């Protein structure tokens, strides 16, 4: 493999990795606070792409406005899902919430199938994202650079919010201990809603970029990125925001490099994430940046 080709794969890997990281953050934030795998996260991604699709097609909005509206609507949907399906089970056994999450995920997928139809639709790609940029012998789509830049900005803002603001402090306190946080005067429900809002907004941005990158949408496109990004969050250490970013990059780079270096294994690309997950769970069950959790008796 030439150096240029390697560079091209590297940039591609980083781009995909930052996309995974963006979506993984949503998982990790929800898991950090509620200890719940939000199975519906992948479907939020799918809904974001459909809202853009219909915004442009039916209401003939300019693409950027469709993007913004999609992010707003998806955020509302994410918060609604929490209110309707997770909040009533706050004090129920963990398995119940997990089943509820699986149920919501299936409900959104199949409802979308009923409403939008099963046929794949093509996602509108504005020209600015598809321009080819030549970069020292490496030619890449502008999208490949736009994704990591956007992700970087959003993740910086999020890290600032969590680490340097009062709201962020309340979020961290809630993640640490529900009851104590409540006693300290934190409105737990508001914090959880906010967490879902941020997670869903990031998922919407991720979903739109996913649509731009793989411009074919159908009601089940959310499943694979959803699962993979959850794995990215676990690999990095779930509940840990820098961990989710790291996990996303490892997964994205790993996948692209697997296909690039061992083309015979291309068919196993989707299994890569799961194998990585199992190895990580065996070696370091709390993930790369996760802290060791003491067993409560």
């Amino acid at each position, binding site marked *: 493999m030439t150096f240029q080709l390697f560079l091209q794969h590297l940039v591609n890997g980083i781009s995909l990795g930052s996309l995974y990281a963006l979506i993984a953050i949503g998982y990790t934030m929800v898991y950090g606070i509620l200890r719940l795998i939000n199975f519906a996260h992948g479907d939020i991604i799918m809904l974001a792409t459909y809202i853009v699709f219909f915004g442009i097609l039916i209401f003939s909005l300019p693409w950027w406005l469709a993007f913004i509206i999609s992010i707003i609507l998806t955020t509302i949907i994410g918060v609604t899902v929490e209110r309707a*399906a997770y909040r009533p089970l706050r004090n129920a056994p963990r398995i119940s919430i997990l089943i*509820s999450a699986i149920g*919501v995920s*299936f*409900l959104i997928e199949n409802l979308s199938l*009923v409403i939008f139809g*099963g046929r794949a639709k093509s996602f509108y790609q504005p020209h600015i994202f598809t321009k080819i940029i030549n970069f020292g012998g490496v030619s890449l789509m502008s999208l490949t650079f736009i994704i990591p830049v956007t992700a970087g900005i959003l993740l910086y803002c999020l890290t600032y919010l969590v680490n340097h603001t009062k709201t962020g402090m309340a979020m961290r306190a809630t993640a640490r201990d529900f009851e104590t946080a409540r006693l300290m005067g934190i409105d737990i429900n508001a914090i959880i809603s906010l967490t879902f809002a941020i997670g869903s907004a990031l998922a919407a941005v991720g979903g739109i970029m996913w649509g731009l990158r793989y411009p074919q949408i159908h009601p089940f496109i959310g499943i694979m990125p959803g699962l993979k990004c959850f794995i990215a969050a*676990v690999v990095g250490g779930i509940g840990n925001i820098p961990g989710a970013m790291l996990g996303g990059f490892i997964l994205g780079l790993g996948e692209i490099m697997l296909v690039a270096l061992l083309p015979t294994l291309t068919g196993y690309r989707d299994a890569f994430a799961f194998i990585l997950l199992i190895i990580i769970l065996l070696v370091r069950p709390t993930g790369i940046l996760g802290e060791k959790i003491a067993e409560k008796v």
Partner: protein
Amino acid sequence: MADRKKFYTGISLLLFILFIYWADSSWDGYKLRIFNLCGIYIILALSLNLVNGFTGLFSLGTAGFMAVGAYTSALLTMSPQMKEMTFFLKPLIWPLNQIQIPFFPALIIAGILSGLVGFLIGFPVLRLRGDYLAIATLGFGEILRVIIINAQGLTNGALGLKGIPKYTTVWWSWGLALLTIFLMVNIVKSSYGRALKAIREDEIAAQAMGINLFYHKITAFTLSAFFAGIGGALLGNLITTVDPTMFVFQLTFQILLIVVLGGMGSITGSVIAAVVVTILMEALRAVESPMTIGSLYIPGIPGMRMVIFSVLLMVVILFYRQGFMGQREFAWEWFSRKGRRHEQSAGS
């Protein structure tokens, strides 16, 4: 009383066998197929309930184990000519392309192989807990599916297998379902089953009482995989084709739905829910196919069935977490207590 209960059980079993005989001889193919599916789903639901309901390990790998069972039994029972026709892109590896064995040993081998896969997966995975276990088992199911798509010389890849002999009859499916129920009841009642329940209630306390956690978890997981493999094999030999798209997460979801609906940790609940859900799934096909009522034409809505089932699952888990049965089981006393109450009200 114990004798009388055994007598009741024997009589109802006999009546049920007569019912199977009557159904087998007088029902048409479509009804028989649904009846068969009921039996198969009972086996699958009990398999999942053993791990999820009784041991409290949230596993989502059923579809993967079913795939192992279905493919094994299909490859063992297909005739060499049929195999040659099916594997036209890439020939089937030796010696599988030469063998054809009867259904019963094929079923057993399918179950054992699936159990073996469960055992091997269980080793690493069962060190995990709760959500991690769920996602890891789900991951293994996906890995198995990816392997099936890619191992063309063994599974015919995405094309799947066609022309599998239709060996599954109501005798097979319901016979094995009854056997599974019998075995499950005995497992759950034994000291081993009580240990499983102890693990479900409190792992650390169970360990403190001297229960070997890993041994109990892995045997439950392996047994569950064994039954899932048998169920998968029966399914493959019923519908005569298998392909990788059959064994997606949606299949696990259907079985999970049965277990949750019936009550996690109730054999009776799983059996009832398996029958109800299977029949509902067929009955609701009407929603998905176009209809004409008088002059009114209603186009079919594909996907509507799964919407209804997801709503059903959500309603149960949000408002009626116990399902039909909770953790209770069927007992003959139900009738006698009702009978007594009846007598009392008649006497007063």
